[in-house]
C-alpha cells in the first residue's frame, strides 16, 4: 500500500512538469492556433537559465522560480514579434514547421555555448532531505514540486475564471467563433499570451533543474510526450491539459514500477485509445474532429 502511495506521489510529481508545460502549450494553441514545437526547447532554456543564474549571479532556486518565467516571457514576446506573428494568418502547419526549425537552432546554440555534458545545479538546503508522511517517505523536493505546480495551475485557473483577461483568453481558446462574434479583440492578447505560454514552459524547466540533467537535449523527448499529453487532454482544453499532464505522470510512474519494459509505450497506447474512443481528447470539443 505504501509503495502504491509512493508511486502515486512520484507520478504526480513527474506529471507536474507535464501539466505546467502542457498548460502553456494549450493556451498558446487556444489563442494563436499555433502548435508550438519549440515548447520542449523553451522548457530546456528555462532549466539552462536557472543553472546560469545560479552560476553567475548566485541566484538560488527561489529566485529562479521568479526570474526565469519573467525572462522567458520576454523571450517569448521577442519570438512572437520576430517570427511567429508573420505566419498567424496562414495554415497553422507553417508555424509548426517554423517552431520545429527554431528548436533545432535553439538546441544547437545551447550546445555551442554550454557544451553537451550538462550544467551543474544545487538545491537550496531547505528543500533537501526527506519527509515522512504517515509511513510514506518522500523526497522533500518532490513534494514541493507537486504542491508548487498545483498552486500555479490553481492560480492560472483563478485568473482564467475571475479576470477579464482570463475570460477573453478562455473564450478565445474554447469558443473562438463565439468570441469573435461578440466582438472581442483577441488580436491584442496574442503576443502576451504567447509569452505567457513560453513562461510556463520555462517555469517547468526551472523547476526541473535540480532534478533532471540540464542538457541541450533535455527538451526533445519531453516535447514528444507533451504532444501526447495535449492530444489526450484535448488540444483546445485548458483543464484537459492539466489533468492529462498529471494522468500521464501517473501512467509513467506505475508503468515504470510494474511493467518497466512497456513504460514508454504505455503513454502512446493511451493516446491511441483516446483518439479511437474520443477523437477530440478527454476534455476537447467533439466538433473539433474534422
Amino acid at each position, binding site marked *: 500500500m505504501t509503495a502504491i502511495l509512493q508511486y502515486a506521489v512520484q507520478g504526480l510529481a513527474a506529471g507536474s512538469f507535464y501539466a505546467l508545460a502542457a498548460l502553456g502549450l494549450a493556451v498558446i494553441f487556444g489563442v494563436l492556433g499555433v502548435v508550438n514545437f519549440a515548447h520542449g526547447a523553451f522548457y530546456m532554456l528555462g532549466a539552462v537559465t536557472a543553472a546560469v543564474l545560479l552560476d553567475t549571479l548566485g541566484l538560488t532556486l527561489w529566485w529562479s522560480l521568479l526570474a526565469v518565467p519573467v525572462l522567458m516571457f520576454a523571450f517569448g514576446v521577442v519570438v512572437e514579434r520576430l517570427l511567429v506573428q508573420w505566419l498567424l494568418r496562414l495554415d497553422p502547419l507553417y508555424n509548426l514547421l517554423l517552431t520545429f526549425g527554431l528548436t533545432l537552432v535553439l538546441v544547437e546554440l545551447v550546445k555551442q555555448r554550454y*557544451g553537451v*555534458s550538462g550544467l551543474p545545479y544545487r538545491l537550496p538546503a531547505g528543500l*533537501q532531505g526527506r519527509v515522512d508522511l504517515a509511513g510514506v517517505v518522500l*523526497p522533500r523536493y518532490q513534494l514541493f514540486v507537486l504542491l508548487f505546480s498545483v498552486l500555479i495551475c490553481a492560480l492560472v485557473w483563478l485568473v482564467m475564471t475571475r479576470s477579464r483577461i482570463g475570460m477573453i483568453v478562455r473564450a478565445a481558446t474554447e469558443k473562438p467563433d463565439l468570441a469573435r462574434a461578440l466582438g472581442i479583440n483577441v488580436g491584442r492578447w496574442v503576443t502576451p499570451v504567447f509569452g505567457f505560454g513560453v513562461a510556463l514552459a520555462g517555469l517547468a524547466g526551472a523547476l526541473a533543474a535540480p532534478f533532471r540533467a540540464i542538457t541541450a537535449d533535455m527538451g526533445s*523527448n519531453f516535447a514528444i510526450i507533451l504532444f501526447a499529453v495535449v492530444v489526450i487532454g484535448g488540444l483546445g482544453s485548458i483543464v484537459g491539459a492539466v489533468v492529462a499532464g498529471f494522468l500521464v505522470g501517473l501512467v509513467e510512474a506505475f508503468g*515504470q*514500477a510494474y511493467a518497466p*519494459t512497456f513504460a514508454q509505450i504505455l503513454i502512446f497506447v493511451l493516446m491511441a485509445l483516446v483518439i479511437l474512443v474520443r477523437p477530440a481528447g478527454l476534455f476537447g470539443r467533439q466538433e473539433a474532429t474534422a
Partner: protein
Amino acid sequence: MESKRMRAGASALTMALLLSACAGAGPGGGGGAFTDDKLVLAVLNDQSGIYKDASGPNTVKAVRMAVADYQQKYGDKAVVTKIEVTSTDHQNKPDIANTKASELYERGGADVILDVPTSSAALAVANQAKNHKRLFLDVSAATTALTGAQCNKYTFQWAYNTYLLANGTGKTVTQNGGRKWTIIYPDYEFGQNMTKSFTEAITKAGGTVQESIPTPFPNENFATFLTKAGSSAPDVIGTMHAGGDLINLVKQFNESGLKDDGVELAVGLMLINDIHSLGVEQFAGTLFTDPWYWNMDAEARAWADRFLAETGTRPSFEHAGNYSAALQYLEAVQAAGTDDADAVIAKLEGKKVNDVFLRNGEIRAQDHSVVHDANLARVKKPGDVKEDWDYEEIVTKIPAAEGFPPAEASGCAMTS
C-alpha cells in the same frame, strides 16, 4: 514496367562497366612503401553530440601530439615524413559513421581510423575495416563484441570494455564490504551486458545481486526505480547508466535520501567530464573504474599538463587512450617500414607496451584486446579538491590480468 526497369538497369550497368576504369581506382595501386607517400590518421568521432566533451575535437589534438612526439623522436630516421591527421564528425549516428569510414578508407586515403565512440557505430566501422583491409583502433566504444563475437584482424580495442568496468568496480567494491547489491540499468544492449558482467563479478567475489531493475532509455525520471531499489535495503546501488541519464539518476539518488541510509552508489561507466559538468559534490564518494586518470602519477600528470596547454582542459582517459593508440601505431609503422596494414598488424600483435596511457600493456594477438592496468577511483569530497579537475582519488589498482577477460574466454575467432 518490369521489363522497362530491367532494361534501364542493364543499360545503366553496361555504361558503368564501360566507364569503370577511372572510377574507384582509390589507393592501393601505388608503388612505394607508403600509399600516396603519406600516412593518414583519421579520427572519426562525435564532435557535436553527447560524447563531444569526453573525446571529440580534443582527441584530434591528442593524436596530433602523438604525431609530433613521433617526429621528434625519430627525426630524420622516420620512415615517413608526411603525416596527416584528419577529423570527421559521425554525429553519433551509426549510419554516418559507416559511410564516412568507408569513404575515409576509399577516398580519404586513411591508413587507420581512430576513436569511434558508441558501440553500434564502432561495430559498423569494424566491418568496414575488415572489408577494406585497413586498420581500426577503437578507443571509446565499450562493447566486448569488438574483441569477441564480431572481432576481426583489422580491429583493435585500445582502452576498455564492459568487462573491465564490471570487474573493476563490481569485484573490488564487493571485496571492500559492499555485499548486497541492487543494480539499475538502462534496458538496452550496453546496460544488459554490463549488468551481466557485474552480476558475475559480484557473485564471484562473494556478494549477491538482490535485484536488477531495467529502466527505459533514455529516461529522465528515476524516482520510481530508486524507491524500488531502496526497498530491499542494499549496501550498494549499482547504476549502468551513462551520459545524461547518469546525471539524472545521480541527482535523484542524492535527493532520495538513500545516501543518508548508508547506501553507496557505484557507477558502471563514468568519465571525468561527467563529474566536471555535474559538480563534484553531487558525485562525492561514488566508486567507479577509471582506465586512466590524469593525476594518477607523475608521467600521466606531465602529459596532462601538455594537454592542458594545448586544449585548456584536462584529458579524459579517452583522450589519453587515443594518444597512445596513435603513438603505438606510428611506432609499428616505423618498425614495419610501410603503411601496409598486414605488416603493421604483425608488428602490433603481441607487443608489450608501456606508455603514458598503457601500464603493463599488452596488445593481445588472440583477440586484439589491448589489456593494461586500470584503477578503481572514488570521487573526492568538495573539501579535498585542491585544483581544477582534481576530482578522483585512486582506491586501488586493477592489474591487467584481473581487469580484462582471458583471451580464451573472449569468444573471438580471428580469421581475417
